[in-house]
């Protein structure tokens, strides 16, 4: 079980690293997907190893996947709209949206 957790910890913080160091908004969203994936692996692993007779972790993972899909759709809509407004999707141009 610890091996699964080690994998998901490393994946989570690789996602955090990408989140901080990327400039493009879609690349940031891709890093965010990595973070969410790591969390969902954790749900499934805890369910399987600690409470194998129940299915709560599995359903949390299912709902997490669905919520991630919804969140990605909305975020991409916002990104496309921002692209239409300011012509590129790097985060340092985004403070133009305030005006």
């Amino acid at each position: 079980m610890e091996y699964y957790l080690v994998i998901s910890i490393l994946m989570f913080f690789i996602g955090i690293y990408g989140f901080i160091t990327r400039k493009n908004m879609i690349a940031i969203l891709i890093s965010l997907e990595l973070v969410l994936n790591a969390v969902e692996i954790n749900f499934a692993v805890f369910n399987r190893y600690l409470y194998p007779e129940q299915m709560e972790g599995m359903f949390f993972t299912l709902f997490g996947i669905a919520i991630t899909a919804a969140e990605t759709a909305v975020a991409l809509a916002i990104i496309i709209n921002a692209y239409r407004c300011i012509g590129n999707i790097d985060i340092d141009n985004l403070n133009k949206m305030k005006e």
Partner: protein
Amino acid sequence: MDPIVNLILFICLGVALLGLSVMAVTAKSLLRSATYLLLVLICTAGLYLFLNYHFLAAVQISVYAGGVLVLFIFAIFLTSNKGDLLKKHNAKKYIMGALAALGGVAVAAFALVKHKFVYGDNTTIEGDQEINMKVIGEALIGTEKYQYILPFEVLSLLLLACIIGGILIARKR
């Protein structure tokens, strides 16, 4: 399956997962990044198969690798010109990011090493005991205790709201 073969497969899967994650956050072009993300998601489905969650692996591949990735690739094609590479931050940001990630790994690994998990008598890890599809379906749309009709319906409402919101935000004025 043979435990040794299992272990080797698991190690290969884990190494592939981590390597592809690193490549996904450091790739030069956005489309490559999305492709590595696709491979990461497929490897995650492999981990679910290792845990004997077959349904979860199927959902992972169909929703994530099928749906979300297509959305990503659509958005990438809509928002980037041909052959342009990602711009970079200055070096300070990279150092900050690496420090944050390493610090987080250190804290989490410390917690993981310190904590002792109580396993109990768990027979479902070895061997392939797949959860019956009928059980999953009944738990997903039942109204008894430990059944999940309410979150399921709330989720469908959320998806509807996201569809409407997405159309509203992304439409042409």
